[in-house]
């Protein structure tokens, strides 16, 4: 039976987990050799993407996106990471910042499959809904 990309990613994670940095390179080379032997190098990108997911999952790392109208300063980024950690129960946050003038102000946070919309645009939409009801 043919292994899936997720199974390769899990195998790679188990191989690398807990290894000292000196042995990591050797293990990766060996893994690439196995992929080449099984003609799976074509799926290398997918396996790496899966590995990153597995790595984040196992180490409590969450990727998040913060959208603001005028950018975030360092203090706010720090507060934001702390806020998302408290919300998601993660150990570490990889924050991806985006600027979107259309949200007018405030911030929109997206992590995992959740969205915390603290934008002025959202407040205005809520106001519009209340006025219509």
């Amino acid at each position, binding site marked *: 039976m043919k292994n899936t990309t997720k199974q390769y990613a899990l195998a790679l994670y188990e191989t690398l987990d807990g290894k000292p940095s000196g042995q990591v390179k050797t293990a990766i080379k060996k893994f690439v050799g196995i992929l080449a032997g099984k003609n799976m190098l074509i799926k290398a990108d997918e396996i790496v993407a899966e590995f990153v997911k597995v790595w984040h999952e196992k180490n409590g790392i969450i990727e998040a996106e913060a959208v*603001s109208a005028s950018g*975030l300063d360092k203090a*706010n980024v720090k507060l934001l990471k702390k806020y998302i950690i408290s919300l998601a129960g993660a150990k570490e946050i990889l924050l991806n910042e985006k600027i979107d003038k259309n949200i*007018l*102000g405030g*911030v929109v946070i997206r992590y995992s499959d959740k969205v915390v919309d603290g934008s002025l645009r959202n407040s*205005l939409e809520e106001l519009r809904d209340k*006025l219509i009801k």
Partner: protein
Amino acid sequence: MDSLIETFHIDGRLLIAQIVNFAIVFAVLYWLVFKPLAKVMAERTSKIAKGLDDAKKVEAKLVRTQEEFNKTMVEAKKQANAILEKAVVEADARKQEMIARAKEEIGVIINQEKQKMQADKAATLKEIKREVADLVVMAMEKVLGEKVDEKRDKEMIKKIIS
């Protein structure tokens, strides 16, 4: 007696002959005329009596027929009246039913129209509300666009996540 015979010049033999003649004529007439005539008369009388009797019977039958006809007519009239009354009652019931149905249909139509009017009213109201909301949001957007600068935005973000 002799004087009488002499007075009237009655000849005894002639008289006897005449009597015999008369008897013969009578007998001939009796056998040839009177008896058949009597028979014919009797038959005729019988026929007339029978005819009269038949006429009486016919009359009686006619009377009975008339009575039966009258009875039948009375019965027919009764039945006709009953049918007419029934027809009138049924027509009245049908009329009442039609009126009730018409009222019901009118009620349904009125309710439908009321509902339609209410729906139209609600739709119009919703449209007005939507337009007002759009105007308010547009005005707010404009005001916020002018009033929220970078500093205020950062303060706002800080408040949201703190």
